[in-house]
């Protein structure tokens, strides 16, 4: 794989944190201590994929020709989920977008595919398990985006890669089930151990080194994560899953964490044991210092808001709450969603050619001056905004009531009324700076209703750039 490398990367962890001691107390088991990141009720593999992809493209503007989306928790079958990510980050229709589903190994597959064509790999997963399971307490929800391209422009060059495949009944799940099954973990450890040694040796030999500076080893099998790090080690660091195992996203999160920590000119051996073993040997370049993601994964891990165990169970559908006496929303319809694609998926409004009044959603006739001259498109998905006013709605239907809604005024014009994501009511006031986050508003009739919500940024004021097009908008 000479000549290719990672140009940019961005990881995303949802802000929710499940406290394992609370989980243990609720179930009367020892679930350990610490926290695990949990996706909110309105996040899924697709929305988290959008978070990571848009963070990457915001920091490192690019128009990759391919998007490979890896997850073991796809929200749709028979419909490509990568196209939702592709639309939400406003990539042109000339690009290719495809899913790579649905196991931990899909993360490696997306990276290999993207690396071969200077594409974008987006890895995202929600890790659910039955209450009391290892997947519940030792899993994580999160996503990562990795942009590949010429080694000469990379922050880390792909020096070697090698894979071995093995049919092993270590871990499996029926499609549609929310909980996976795991054979005795020691069986998997014994089965994967020789493969792990061989694949590591192979890439180290090819590179002509005895040991890598950094080793990151991931596997859905907890025993391998625990004991494997003693088998293959790095001279500077040896790490495994950072936040809890995040399914198809885990290998990408491990890479992001290594890139957060490594210095230029160091080697990183990435290993994953899942249905075989995969090895990737990276060598960081002098560009790394400038292109690290602004907030390291571990710093994000240390932040977050406590989510009670019962709330978490209701978010995942293990606990069904009494709904308000309000009708459930109608499913979004196909034709209007397709016509309004630029609006719905990349928050693109229109700007009056005569008076520059910004319309959200786009309008034909200006609401201020009445002009019906063709309007220019403007995406405000990355724009900064301010809360004009807000309210807490205890009557509205919401998968996690109460619903918090804010009237949001965008920098440079434009107003819309949006739900507030990850609502921390006391963090909200008139004048609060907010950004946007792509979320699933609700699911009705089997259709996931994706749209944007306002979000108070975790660190500092929301800022952003507008993307303006005079061609009537990219569809």
């Amino acid at each position, binding site marked *: 794989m000479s000549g290719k490398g990672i140009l940019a990367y961005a990881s995303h962890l949802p802000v929710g944190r499940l406290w394992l001691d609370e989980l243990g107390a609720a179930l009367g088991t020892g679930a350990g201590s610490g926290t695990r990141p949990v996706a909110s009720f309105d996040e899924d593999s697709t929305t988290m994929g959008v978070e990571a992809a848009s963070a990457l493209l915001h920091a490192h503007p690019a128009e990759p020709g391919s998007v490979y989306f890896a997850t073991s928790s796809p929200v749709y079958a028979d419909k490509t989920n990568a196209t939702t990510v592709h639309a939400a980050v406003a990539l042109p229709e000339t690009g290719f977008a495809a899913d790579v589903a649905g196991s931990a190994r899909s993360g490696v597959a997306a990276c290999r595919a993207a690396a071969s064509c200077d594409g974008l790999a987006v890895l995202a997963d929600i890790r659910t398990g039955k209450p009391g399971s290892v997947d519940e307490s030792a899993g994580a929800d999160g996503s990562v985006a990795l942009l590949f391209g010429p080694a000469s422009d990379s922050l880390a060059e792909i020096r070697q890669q090698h894979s071995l495949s093995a049919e092993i009944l270590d871990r499996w799940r029926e499609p549609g089930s929310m909980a996976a099954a795991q054979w005795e973990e020691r069986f998997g450890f014994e089965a994967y151990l020789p493969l792990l040694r061989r694949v590591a040796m192979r890439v180290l030999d090819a590179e002509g080194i005895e040991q890598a500076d950094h080793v990151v080893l991931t596997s859905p099998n907890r025993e391998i994560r625990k004991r494997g790090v003693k088998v293959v080690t790095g001279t500077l660091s040896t790490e495994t899953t950072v936040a809890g195992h995040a399914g198809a996203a885990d290998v990408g999160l491990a890479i992001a964490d290594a890139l957060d920590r490594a210095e230029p000119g160091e080697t990183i051996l990435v290993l994953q044991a899942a249905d075989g073993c995969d090895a990737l040997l990276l060598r960081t370049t002098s560009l790394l210092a400038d292109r690290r993601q602004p907030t390291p994964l571990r710093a994000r891990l240390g932040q977050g808001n406590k989510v009670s165990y019962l709330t978490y169970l209701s978010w995942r559908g293990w606990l069904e709450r009494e709904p308000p*006496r309000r009708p459930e929303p109608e499913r979004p319809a196909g034709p209007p969603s397709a016509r309004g694609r630029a609006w719905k998926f990349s928050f693109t409004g229109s700007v009056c050619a005569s008076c520059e009044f910004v319309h959200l959603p786009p309008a034909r006739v200006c609401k201020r001056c009445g002009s019906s001259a063709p309007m220019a498109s403007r995406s405000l998905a990355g724009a900064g905004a301010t809360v004009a006013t807000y309210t807490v*709605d205890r009557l509205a239907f919401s998968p996690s009531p109460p*619903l918090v809604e804010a009237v949001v005024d965008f920098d440079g014009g434009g107003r819309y*009324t*949006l739900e507030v994501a990850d609502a921390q009511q006391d963090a909200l006031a008139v004048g609060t700076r907010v950004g946007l986050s792509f979320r699933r508003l609700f699911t009705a009739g089997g259709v996931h209703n994706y749209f944007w919500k306002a979000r108070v940024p975790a660190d500092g004021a929301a800022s952003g750039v507008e993307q303006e097009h005079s061609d009537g908008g990219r569809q």
Partner: protein
Amino acid sequence: MSSRGICDRVAVVGMGCTPFGEHWSSSAEDLLVDAAEEVLAGARIANQDIDAYWLGTLGSGQSGLTLSRALSVDYKPVTRVENYCATGSEAFRNACYAVASGAYDRVLAVGVEKLKDSGFSGLLRSDPPGDGTAAELSLTAPAAFSLLDPAYCARYGVDSADVRAAMTHIAWKNHENGSRNPKAQYRSPVSKEKIEQAPVVAGRLGVLDCSGVSDGAAAALIVRAEHAADYTDRPMYVKGLSLAAGPARGAMDPDYDYTTFPEVVHSVRDALRQAGVGDPREELSLAEVHDCFTPTELVLMEDMGFAERGQAWKDILEGAFELDGKLPVNPDGGLKSFGHPVGASGLRMLYECWLQFRGEAGRRQLPDPRLALTHNLGGRPGNCVSFVSVVGSEPTM
């Protein structure tokens, strides 16, 4: 503006109104027939003598057939209209124009709504298939109107406790009035403590800051003014009718601050001008306004010109809009006491004017009322329609 109006050209010569409430044993058809029969009996004419009908209903039926089937109308024109919460008023407005045009001599306007068959709280929406992005899909009506409260406090620098007190006073006043009305859904006074301690629905709005949910129907018989004496010695003259549907700019315009309804300002100016009213606070005897939520009535007092900007909360607390105040507002108890069966509400407001002019308003009778205003608001702040009528007990000389 060439809204010429039809001042004094038509008159209401009969009205009917069912009690509003949870009519578990009446259908929309039953309520519609009850209201229509009250009108016909009062005006001493038969259904066969009606030339045309306008029916207002948001969701209790479609097409003119909803009325013609219920009343067994023999092949007459029946028009069903819908304009959000101004639906009942819209039926009335169009019926008045039909008479004023000379096309018909006797037109019946009926409004009906059956809300309590759905099993849900609040009003239901019936939207065309969409892309799932409309704010209305998630935010309920009380939440949308709750935005007025903090905006008003901020704009005028009014202490939030004072605005809370004004909102409470509005609910208290309307329930006081409603306690004197045998047709209201809620016929007991409600203490201010109870209002402020009610469970929170949205923002600072509690359950008792919201209008109720009820079923009901109301109807009016409209004839040319010169024929009015054939039906009654105390007709109610139509002086102004205005409807304003805006571009819904507020929902998109950062300059809109949620302390006014521009649609109301436009429609009230237009209706007052048609009626030749210069100072509504001095000239009107009463006003029936759309108190869907308490902060709505607060803002309406300023949009209507009943109070100076930023001052309505004071006038409210000083009792200006109570039965014995300077300008009684919602003397019948308002939406607060009646609930809001959408198609019926606008005609229910006119029914109160009708009773007041005839001296038939019982324990809430005002002394010598001559001129009244009714108002409906449909939609939500920044995105609404507004209707205003002015009616009087005498033609202008």
